[in-house]
């Protein structure tokens, strides 16, 4: 079968990292904005999609679409097989124990809400604590605050230092008899800090505390090995990993998922329904009520194939070169401050200019074709910690180039011409 879904990435990268060939796989990168070539530096918000992903989704709708887990007819069986195959693919991608530990959600946000409302609401009591960090995305703050309002848990916040690193002894000191979960980002979406996940898990496990990592940024930038990390829960979103939006993943250790009650009720998650009572399916299906994002999940499978085809180590190596080059060039701009100087850092660079607000920077860069994020990045507590109202953020992906870092610097010089 030579369908789009099984098409391999273009044969490249035998030796050098062939970024030009990769760029050809992402049709949108050839477009123009305000008459200028698009320089897309906002992949941290959502990554662009390679042809292989776009084709896979289209191919499902054109030739292989039906609802899953229901039909006795061939089309439905095939759709079901392809959908379920992605579960196994993700388990291998993250080195999870089995496909049954992979729950599909709409996004990382929903995955964290699932853990808060199913695991947290069942096993936490008033006065118990969830430890988060100062650099969390709102998605890993608000679900715990909602749980605090519902059942009276407390949210404890592990501080970061001025470089943007978690202060490990302060983190360890927060782990007490009432701590029921550590929920921390694996990579900050603002600072790029890659947190010492193994060490976090080791410290928590020494006290019998399970750990959830928000891997939305981390899975994009490095190879994640869940069994080596010994993560209890791990979440990520598909759209940052070059896959379709509407796809997210919750990994949970089988023993934990097995004792968790359903998150939402409906079709597909039940074993039997009667008005006298309903029984639920085993995980992971227990947590997947209703028709999921079928074509999109299959598209996520194609995205993972693509990333593995290029090679995660090679992508990480390229992105580190981009990070170092862009950091050096940005640092030379007068009045520019970079936030986040962690030793282990992804290619995510947040900065401010003394002469212009992040939004003014964003608007002027857009005019030059350069797309960056400006604002609080869904991390208002971190903005308070940094004592800035907003930052500009350039986030690099596998398809970005050194020339694009140069274009960013040139556009920032225009900002300075106007405002300085």
């Amino acid at each position, binding site marked *: 079968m030579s369908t789009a879904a099984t098409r391999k990435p273009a044969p490249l990268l035998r030796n050098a990292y062939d970024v030009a060939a990769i760029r050809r796989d992402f049709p949108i990168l050839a477009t123009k904005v305000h008459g200028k070539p698009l320089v897309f530096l906002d992949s941290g918000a959502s990554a662009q999609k390679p042809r292989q992903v776009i084709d896979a989704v289209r191919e499902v709708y054109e030739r292989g679409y039906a609802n899953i887990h229901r039909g006795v007819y061939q089309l439905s069986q095939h759709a079901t097989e392809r959908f379920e195959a992605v579960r196994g693919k993700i388990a291998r991608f993250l080195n999870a124990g089995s496909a049954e530990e992979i729950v599909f959600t709409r996004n990382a946000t929903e995955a964290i809400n699932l853990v808060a409302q199913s695991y947290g609401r069942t096993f936490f009591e008033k006065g118990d604590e969830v430890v988060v960090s100062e650099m969390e995305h709102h998605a890993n703050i608000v679900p715990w605050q909602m749980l605090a309002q519902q059942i009276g848990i407390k949210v404890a916040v592990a501080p970061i230092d001025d470089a943007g690193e978690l202060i490990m002894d302060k983190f360890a000191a927060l782990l007490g008899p009432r701590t029921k979960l550590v929920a921390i980002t694996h990579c900050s979406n603002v600072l790029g800090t890659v947190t010492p996940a193994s060490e976090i898990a080791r410290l928590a496990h020494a006290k019998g505390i399970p750990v959830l990592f928000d891997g939305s940024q981390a899975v994009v930038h490095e190879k994640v090995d869940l069994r080596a990390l010994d993560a209890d829960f791990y979440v990520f979103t598909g759209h940052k990993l070059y896959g379709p939006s509407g796809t997210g993943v919750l990994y949970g250790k089988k023993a934990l998922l097995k004792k968790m009650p359903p998150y939402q009720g409906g079709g597909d998650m039940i074993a039997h329904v009667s008005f006298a009572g309903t029984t639920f399916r085993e995980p992971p299906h227990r947590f997947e009520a209703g028709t999921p994002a079928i074509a999109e999940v299959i598209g996520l499978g194609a995205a993972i194939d693509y990333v593995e085809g290029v090679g995660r180590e090679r992508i990480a190596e390229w992105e580190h070169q981009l990070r170092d080059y862009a950091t050096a060039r940005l640092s030379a701009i007068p009045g520019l401050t970079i936030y986040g100087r962690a030793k282990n850092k992804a290619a995510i660079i947040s900065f401010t200019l003394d002469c212009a607000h*992040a939004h003014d920077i964003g608007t002027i860069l857009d*005019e030059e074709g350069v797309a960056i994020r400006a604002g*609080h990045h869904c991390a208002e507590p971190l903005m308070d910690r940094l004592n800035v109202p907003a930052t500009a953020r350039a986030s690099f992906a596998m398809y970005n180039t050194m020339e694009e870092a140069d274009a960013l610097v040139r556009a920032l010089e225009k900002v300075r011409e106007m405002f300085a």
Partner: protein
Amino acid sequence: MSDLRDLYQEVILDHGKRPRNFRHPADANREAKGDNPLCGDKVTIYLKLSPDHRIEDVAFQGRGCAISTASASLMTEILKGKTEEEAKALFGALHHMCTQEDAAPELPPALEHEFDRLQVLSGVRQYPMRVKCATLAWHTMKAALEGAEKASTE
């Protein structure tokens, strides 16, 4: 670049860098805080309102982009001495100018001249994401007039 120069006219850049009436008057009798949750802009508007509802003094503090700072600064210059009703009429006209293509509803002749000074903000119409920047201070001023403590562009 022409659109950009429309957005960032010299007046905007000037007021953005050197905002007027950027202070907290001790005798202010109305104040409201405004924020734009999307971008984190924050502004506090202070008014000194006379018993006959005339704005005797108006000032602001806060932090935001060039557009929101300039809009607040221009507002403080224009509203001083205006009545509450005139201030609301100017806000209505500004909001219309920032969001609609057609001409704004007519203002009394005395206000037309003042409103002309706000034309420098009309560039935001081409930048829908920035309309809230241009109107934040005005929303907050209206909240202060109406005795509300908080305003939000959401």
